[in-house]
């Protein structure tokens, strides 16, 4: 027994028959609370009921003794039978270590099973304590004792608040995670949750600005001095061989104070713990609503959609063939596109012109016209490289040359035709073809003008570059103008043919003709 290690007292928790060991230890603990110190195996056997036989109980008790949970003393009571006398009889009691282990396990059970509560009472405690501390801090001579008591109770209230809030949030999350939760259990839980959250969050919303304000005031009133005084007061109780007792305790108090402050005061980067608690409570409400919606859906006969998809997955896997899979897809999801034969505008026009009776079989109706290129190549447009742009500069040059030649000819004809001063027609001389054409133009213009037959007539060509003044002579002579194609005979006139420069006033009267075209050769 002396070579058993201290932690052997916990070995019974994970050994085989752990529940038997636990039951035995709990029987001892219960007896202890009744102030019964020693127990015989028979008593233990009675206490734990029919879970094990007497021999099994005895074996278990021996094992517990070996681990150090129990102590055995010889049993010296009187016996009445020979077998009892010969049997090894012991009395058992809890050892100190065993009792400590039992207490620890009981605390463990309790902490695990504890649901945690959100305490709204703690908030008002904290607020009141802070108020008192503030009063002390502002006083000239703060009472060390009262400051110390106040700080300790503040920290205690705050500790229990924080741990309970944590436990509550933890249990909340665990419950919401259960998707298979039963309706009745859930309803009970929902009512509890809502009442808790209402009370606590409401109080938190009211209390935390007040507490934050009090903390700010305390900071302004130099709370650190208070902490120093409390640390010194506590250091006076410290053992002499402790190094820097004041410093350690001061650091501890400052830590606690910072923790308290952080809980209620924060900024954007590190929000206050109270803020986070409120946020979590809000999220819990939202999650609660989601669970309610799911339960509702389940109740209204629509099954859980996730289970639906899993069932469909099984059906697809068990379908006989690929075609059946496609059928199931269409029926279950209904996401397939419609399908129709197409009709071009030409087809519709042809139908409008020559409608087909509804009783005609398809074989007798005119078929759909397919563009020949589509039938031949599979594409509507001609494929391949685009046609190259032909170079026409040669032709352009030829045309420019021809135009140049024509213009030169016309200018030469004009010059040939123009007379310096009035001249008789018969004295005009031989005219080549171009000049003769111009001359006929002029003559036509002049003769077409209305006027007295005996008076001079002035006219110009259509382009305004040549002007003629025609005066009939009175002597009745005949003019003969030889040309390349023959001779022109007519009454003799006196003509004056002049070149008209652009911008000159119209010889027949009127505004000067604007220059038409460009690049004219000057007179």
């Amino acid at each position: 027994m002396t070579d058993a290690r201290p932690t052997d007292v916990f070995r019974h928790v994970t050994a085989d028959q752990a529940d038997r060991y636990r039951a035995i230890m709990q029987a001892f603990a219960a007896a202890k609370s009744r102030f019964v110190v020693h127990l015989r195996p028979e008593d233990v056997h009675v206490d734990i009921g029919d879970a094990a036989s007497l021999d099994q109980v005895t074996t278990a008790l021996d094992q517990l003794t070996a681990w150090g949970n129990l102590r055995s003393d010889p049993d010296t009571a009187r016996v009445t039978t020979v077998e009892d006398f010969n049997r090894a009889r012991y009395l058992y009691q809890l050892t100190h270590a065993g009792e400590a282990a039992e207490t620890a396990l009981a605390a463990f059970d309790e902490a695990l099973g504890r649901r945690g509560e959100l305490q709204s009472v703690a908030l008002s405690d904290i607020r009141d304590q802070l108020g008192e501390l503030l009063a002390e801090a502002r006083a000239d001579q703060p009472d060390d004792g009262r400051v110390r008591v106040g700080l300790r109770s503040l920290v205690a209230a705050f500790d229990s608040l924080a741990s309970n809030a944590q436990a509550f949030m933890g249990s909340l999350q665990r419950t919401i995670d259960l998707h298979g939760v039963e309706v009745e259990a859930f309803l009970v839980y929902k009512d509890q949750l809502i009442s808790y959250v209402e009370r606590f969050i409401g109080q938190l919303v009211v209390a935390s600005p007040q507490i934050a304000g009090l903390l700010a005031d305390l900071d302004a009133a130099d709370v650190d001095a208070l902490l120093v005084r409390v640390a010194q007061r506590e250091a006076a109780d410290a053992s002499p061989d402790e190094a820097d007792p004041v410093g350690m305790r001061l650091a501890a108090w400052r830590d606690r104070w910072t923790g308290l402050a952080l809980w209620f005061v924060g900024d954007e980067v590190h929000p206050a713990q109270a803020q986070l608690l409120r946020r979590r409570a809000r999220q819990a409400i939202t999650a609660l609503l989601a669970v309610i919606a799911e339960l509702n859906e389940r109740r209204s006969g629509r099954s859980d959609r996730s289970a639906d998809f899993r069932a469909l997955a099984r059906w697809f896997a068990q379908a006989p063939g690929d075609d059946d899979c496609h059928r199931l897809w269409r029926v279950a999801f209904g996401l397939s596109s419609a399908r129709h034969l197409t009709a071009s505008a030409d087809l519709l026009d042809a139908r409008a012109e020559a409608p087909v009776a509804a009783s005609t079989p398809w074989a007798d109706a005119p078929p759909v016209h397919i563009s020949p290129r589509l039938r031949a190549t599979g594409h509507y447009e001609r494929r391949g490289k685009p046609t190259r742009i032909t170079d026409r500069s040669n032709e352009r040059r030829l045309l420019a040359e021809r135009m140049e030649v024509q213009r030169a000819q016309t200018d030469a004809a004009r010059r040939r035709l123009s007379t310096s001063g009035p001249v008789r027609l018969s004295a005009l001389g031989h005219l080549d073809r171009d000049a003769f054409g111009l001359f006929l133009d002029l003559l036509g213009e002049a003769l077409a003008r209305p006027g007295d037959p005996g008076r001079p007539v002035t006219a110009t060509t259509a382009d305004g570059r040549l002007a003629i003044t025609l005066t009939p002579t009175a002597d009745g002579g005949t003019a003969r103008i030889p040309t390349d194609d023959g001779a022109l005979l007519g009454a003799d006139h006196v003509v004056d043919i002049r070149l008209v420069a652009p911008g000159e006033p119209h010889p027949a009267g009127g505004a000067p003709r604007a220059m038409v075209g460009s690049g004219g050769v000057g007179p």
Partner: protein
Amino acid sequence: MTATHVPATHVLDRANTQAADDDRSRAIRALLRRPLLAAGGPGAEAFVLVRRHAAWLRDWFAAETGWRLHVEPEFARLRKRPADLDDATRPARPGRGRPPFSRRRYVLTCLALAALERSEAQTTLGLLAEKVITGAADPALADAGVVFTMERIDERRDLVSVVRLLLDLGVLDRVAGDEQAYVDARGDALYDVNRRVLSVVLTTTRGPSTVAEESFASRLAVLGHDAALDAVGPVAVRRRLARRLLDDPVVYDADLTDDERAYLRTQRPQLARRLAEPSGLVAELRAEGSCLLDPTSEATDAALPEEGTDGHATLLAAEYLAAAGRTVDRDELTAHLAQLAEQHRPYWRKDTREPEGVAAVCRTAVDRLAALRLVDVTADGVTPRPALSRYAADEPTIAGRQESLL
């Protein structure tokens, strides 16, 4: 003709009504195409129209088809319960043109949705994978031979394609990261979970977990049962037919029940008009059946004709089958397509030069034709159905030919 003075307000009213009708038909087509329209997803502009005319659309769908329309500020959900439970041509696809889901991916989708139900507002791919693995520990799944460990790269690819489907539906929104990084096991992706959309993804009236049937057919029947179609009488028959006409490309008389056929015999033009006018579709009524054509291509996910190698092959296969007019077995069709691949070598994809490529194109073409209800696929081969005659080759017309003037 005497000109009557039409007041300006009357003209404006007519124009407004016309605009409102156009908006409504666009909204109907958008909902038919994507029964779950989310405010931020691919159908965002159509979603605005759906919200504007939500009350009218709700009443119209309820009256015509018995489908319930549920419009919220962030999404619109048309609970498109099919009238025909046997259609296997509408698989889930992670994106347009991608291969359809396999059984494993369907199971993974359901497990992922179950995990998302229980998750927080955000999740990552890694976390989702862990929850899926936990959910996949169901003994029923293991018995059926579906096991997930997320160790192998192809399992991760499966999960990524499931996540792509969920992204497309609007259940998840990607916030950061990349799915490819997860497949390569060098990263992760972060998503927002849209719980409201998640709550309307399933459209069954009875939760599958409350159904205790054992055989697949009875499970399907219980899930597919719809109280709106329960009543005996012309209203239920009309709604069933309306669902089929709005959802299926062609509705053949041979596939209908007796009471539906009897209804159509007298009421077909009126029913077609009731459905075609508000939705902008065009009715084509023939002796063997009826269909609603879509001139806008907004209400359909597959079209014929289409550009591209697969579309071209489908068109030519349709012509061949329409000309043949009998059941053609797969080998014959594949041989014909191989000839066509040779003929159209410059225009078709490179992989059609190999026999496997031709076989793949043949499979795609037959699947597309079956999806459009133009052929029947049986063990013997491919049987054309009456509507396939629409795609028979027609006489070429020479443009600009005029009668000679004398």
